[in-house]
């Protein structure tokens, strides 16, 4: 599974952080940080994070079958 966040679209809605806190978070300067290849987080949780993004900044490729 590969995660990509389009930072030109991201507007700090925080929905991905709510949905998959093990993958997405904010640093002290309000920048989104994320694990582009998480191993411990279920694919369904990452999919929910991508679907919840109001500006469709989060894309997910591949993942376990």
């Amino acid at each position: 599974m590969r995660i990509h966040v389009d930072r030109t679209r991201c507007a700090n809605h925080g929905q991905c952080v709510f949905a998959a806190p093990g993958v997405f978070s904010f640093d002290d300067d309000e920048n989104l940080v994320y694990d582009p290849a998480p191993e411990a987080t279920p694919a369904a949780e990452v999919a929910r994070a991508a679907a919840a993004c109001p500006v469709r900044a989060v894309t997910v490729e591949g993942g376990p079958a």
Partner: protein
Amino acid sequence: MSGGPSSIVVVGAGIAGLRTATALRDRGFAGRLVLIGNEPHAPYDRPPLSKEVLTGRLAPEAAALPVPADVEVRSGRAAVRLDRAARRVLLDDGSAQSYEGLVIATGATAVPWPGPTPAQGVLTLRGLDDAARLRAALAEGDPLLVVGGGFLGCEIASAAREAGAPVALVCRDRLPMRRTVGAEVGALVARLQTEAGVSLRTGVTVTGFSGSRRVTGVELSDGTRIRARTVVTALGARPATDWTRGSGLGTHSGGLRCDHRRRALDEEGRPVEGIVVVGDAAAAPHPLPYPGAPSHLVIGHWSGAVDHADTAAATLVGGPPPGPVPPPSFWSDQYGVRVRAVGLPGAADRVEVHEYDPERRRVEISQHRDGRTVGAVTVNRTSRLAAHRARIVAEHGEGVVVG
């Protein structure tokens, strides 16, 4: 999935209808899936209409949403009646669409001005065509008058200033957006608007319009007048459920009552099999019930439409249990400032101000009712929101929030 519907009709092609259609396919529904939209456009996303589409930074076409390939989209057709006995939806071209499963996702319409207005120059903003008209008016550089100090009115004022138009904003309350996000954030929004050059008039109402054919201005309750060539009213939205009248479905505040599984309820409160309600058309069980709270609530947020889509799909076609339904969340972008909120901040009987720095445009406030966290609002501080949201879920019990 044997025994499930072989055909599902989704009435309403906004985010709620589209996401529910997508969730149905994701759950393996292989039958006929029809999506009916009353606008002559392919499905699109509404939030940019009061922001980037108005300023011109985003072309209206860019608001289009991806539609799964195996969904039949019928655009420009409005549902006019629901015939539950015959399991069909009657459309405004005289045709009927039969269904086995029905998704009601007809959203909401702008509350109209409650009186006569001049024929030209008085607009509302709800759909793509509305946005195109308002954008064209802004492009002429004419003064804009916005009536309504809620999220939509404030965002329109922000976009219009960015587009270079002189703007006046009339707000009935003493502070804009106060009812939904509280006085502190309302005060910051008032400051943003004023600093951006908006003539903000609070605590007054519009009592009448002047202009015979084209609007020339408005009269206010304090006796003053404001001149304008374009007026946009942003008075809120109401569920677009008139077409279901007479079908025996129960309503609450104009929305169609549903249960936690999104099943429509009849007038006696009994679940109706085969019909689910999603998005702004729904009056769903109160997400954070406190003593005295209404049983059902109409919540017109983008995120709610998205959060409930899979629950509704699971109710119609089965499959694995849907994920937890989160508390409500919503946002507003104005003058580059990011207002983000969770829960029901307007329900508070007490607020905690964790940070309030208008100079740096940073706010973190949580809202509480009867000793429990019911909401949180941040401005340019989304990083602080997740912890409050977790408290809302923990203090209300997963059973209630998850449904």
